[in-house]
């Protein structure tokens, strides 16, 4: 390869990395001439962050008959009649105001047990959402608190993109609203619960649940869909029920967004297109599947005048308001160190390694942005492991080449032999890492699966870039005037031919 060709290839590669790096890292507020785009957010600011970096969203669910002290104060403040009514109706217990009737003769023990049982069902439902972290807890025995990651990107977290911010909160609100649906499955004649009548009559409470085998959400291209599986008896009941009237599926009083047209022929597997994100389809599927498997909430939540729907509150991350900035600065420092420290030892080859480290960082940021994986602190360490493997693979090979040069081989032969000797070791190490990452992705749940995907992308990038380093040896070797000394590697024997 000629010097010119070599320079052009190197320049093209570096230019490609620089351009991608600019898109990946530089956000531009107010982009002139961009047809209405007031801000371009870089890939890195569009990566979904885990709870440790962008905070959590929480909702407290109050069962019917329980109101918080804050809501109580707000309701009675400056209203003597209301105060008297509340004093007669509620009793203060465990930091809440609880309806005396709900407490019953056992001083609320049975009520507290029912709240705990509901929390267990909710925990089960939320585990199906596969959040990177979540918690469901019973607060003072009579309320349930649900905490999930906000999943904000940095741009959303800093409110550069309020639309994305509110869309994430709306998804969380949807999840809380539909997963807290109480009661059994029902088929109603109207979209409005109050105006509808049940299309299935049976003395036994919740008998309708038994006609469902389960439900699952899936994606088909851009379409988010929900598949419901019915039992043989369920098919017959559904066909009877919707023979003369449209039917709408509910869990208790909560509509599941699924309708059946009058006279529609129903089969054992029903597929519905869902308006909204995949998360919305998943909420319906989880709720229906849970009830079909007999896991129902006993109490109605946030059903009173004081607390109608759960309020979603976002919290600052436990690692601090600016955790994401520190996190980014740290990642940058590691990448710079990995890129430039080897230059001291390996000179020109160290620069090649630096280019590969930059390529790795840029490709990983782009891949994480495109796949929508949630990045956490553990995720960063997962991304660093393949980077370390790539650098060590390069250094091993460099050392191999150095050894070959030192025993007297000319430069080209030394490179060839050095790579040949490490060929299988590095190949099968990467195969093992890729296999392990596939297992992590497929078997793991939540954060582990997200880290598995990051590791898979990283391992593939590591191996591809290892060979790109080899290619760069070839490209750079065209400029070598002294075939016996290169990048600090020096032949000891003068001539071995």
């Amino acid at each position: 390869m000629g010097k010119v060709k070599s320079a052009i290839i190197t320049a093209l590669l570096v230019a490609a990395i620089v351009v991608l790096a600019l898109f990946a890292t530089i956000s531009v507020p107010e982009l002139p001439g961009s047809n209405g785009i007031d801000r371009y957010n870089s890939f890195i600011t569009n990566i979904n962050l885990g709870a440790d970096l962008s905070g959590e969203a929480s909702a407290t669910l109050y069962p019917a008959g329980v109101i918080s002290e804050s809501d109580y104060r707000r309701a009675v403040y400056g209203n003597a009649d209301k105060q008297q009514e509340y004093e007669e109706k509620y009793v203060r217990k465990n930091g809440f105001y609880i309806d005396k009737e709900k407490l019953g003769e056992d001083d609320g023990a049975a009520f507290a047990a029912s709240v705990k049982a509901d929390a267990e069902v909710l925990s089960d439902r939320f585990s199906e959402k596969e959040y990177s972290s979540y918690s469901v807890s019973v607060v003072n025995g009579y309320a349930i608190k649900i905490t999930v990651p906000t999943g904000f990107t940095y741009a959303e977290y800093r409110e550069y993109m309020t639309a994305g911010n509110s869309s994430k909160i709306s998804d969380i609100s949807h999840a809380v609203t539909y997963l807290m649906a109480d009661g059994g499955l029902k088929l109603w004649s109207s979209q409005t619960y109050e105006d509808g009548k049940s299309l299935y009559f049976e003395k036994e409470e919740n008998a309708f649940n038994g006609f469902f085998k389960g439900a699952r959400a899936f994606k088909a291209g851009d379409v988010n869909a929900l598949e419901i599986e019915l039992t043989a008896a369920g098919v017959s009941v559904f066909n009877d029920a919707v023979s003369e009237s449209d039917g709408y599926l509910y869990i208790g009083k909560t509509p599941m967004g699924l309708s059946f047209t009058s006279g529609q022929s129903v089969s054992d597997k029903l597929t519905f297109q869902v308006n909204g994100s995949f998360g919305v389809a998943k909420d319906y599927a989880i709720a229906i599947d849970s009830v079909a498997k007999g896991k129902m909430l006993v109490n109605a939540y946030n059903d009173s005048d004081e607390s109608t729907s759960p309020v979603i509150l976002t919290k600052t991350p436990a690692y601090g308001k600016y955790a994401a900035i520190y996190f980014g600065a740290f990642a940058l420092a590691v990448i710079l160190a990995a890129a430039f420290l080897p230059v001291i030892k390996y000179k020109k080859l160290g620069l090649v390694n630096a280019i590969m480290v930059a390529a790795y960082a840029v490709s990983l940021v782009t891949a994480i942005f495109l796949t929508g994986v949630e990045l956490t602190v553990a995720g960063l360490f997962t991304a660093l492991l393949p980077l370390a493997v790539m650098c060590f693979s390069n250094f091993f090979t460099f050392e191999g080449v150095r050894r070959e040069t030192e025993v007297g081989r000319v430069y080209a032969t030394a490179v060839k032999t050095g790579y040949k000797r490490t060929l299988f070791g590095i190949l099968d190490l990467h195969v093992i890492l890729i296999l392990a990452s596939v297992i992590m992705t497929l078997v793991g749940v939540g954060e582990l699966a997200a880290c598995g995907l990051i590791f898979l992308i990283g391992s593939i990038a590591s191996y591809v870039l290892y060979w790109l380093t080899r290619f760069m040896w070839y490209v750079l070797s065209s400029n070598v005037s002294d075939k016996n000394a290169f990048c600090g590697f020096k032949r000891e024997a003068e001539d071995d031919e």
Partner: protein
Amino acid sequence: MNNFKFSSKLRVVAIISSAIIFVGMLLGTVFHFTLGGFFNYGGEYSSYKTVTVTYYWIEVNGGEDGNALDLNGVCEKAFADAGVSYYVKTQESTDSSMRSVTEYRFLPSTDADALQKASEAINAEIDSYASFTDIPLSIATYSDEQAIIGGERVLSMAAVTLAVIVAIHFIYTAIRFGLSAMFTAFAADLHNLALYAAVLALCRVPITSSVLVFAVLAALATAVGTTLTFERLKRNFKDADNAKKSVGEIVDMSAAQTVKTNIALPAFFAICAALIFALMAISSLSPLSVLSGALCALVAFAVCGYGDVMFVPAIYPCLRKLSGKMAVKRPSAKKEKAD
């Protein structure tokens, strides 16, 4: 090169490791039954006591003389007077009613009466700064939040992932380096994972999904480290110059040749862990909250370094003897056979 003869230090390594594992597991089991469960996924992490301060524009409206109320200072003083300290402080956003919420989390073992007393003291301060509309709505409340453990699926899937990774490592080592290396790799994986769990139990780091991710990373780093060592061992066993050396000498020589790399990789990650969590501690509202994350990352990579540098060379000669087969035929042995 170093002068450590790890091949003959099996007893020392075994004593150190088994003592840590035994004490850690014992304490973990005790905590499991007494404090709500080390081995329950997220048990201690999700259950906590809180003092939640809900306030409405209190800094704007507070104070008879127009001075804003230093709510943070009031809370800190109330907690100090009650003799309690929180480990996480978070601030929640304002909602449509302009409400702000600050939540202080305390360990489940914190005295409930002391927390109740602290929240009453905060309320008294808030009341004394009352302005005419907002104060009845601003309030500090004490809560006990008991987590419903829903992490069984995460935990069991992580266990399956770990088991499969160990199995892949086991099979790969068997194919590439032979029986004795296979047993050594398996022992190293088990040793490192057990040590990781034991040290976390000793440090009272609760099990969360991050802990599980670091366990998997530790297993992967072990796989990388042992592969390097076995690769070097294989080369040294094949080398005719080493034909007269004993197995122990070759193991020590290989360990010495790979020690830099085997320390460098975990050390790099341990330094990264220390750095990132130092930065997070500066950023955090409550530095204690980053401690468990920092510890699990540090422990995972420290255990890996120890396992790869000390445990593998120590146990390999022993397992090689036990396996009764030569993983890699040495030149001298081949020659003897040919003769």
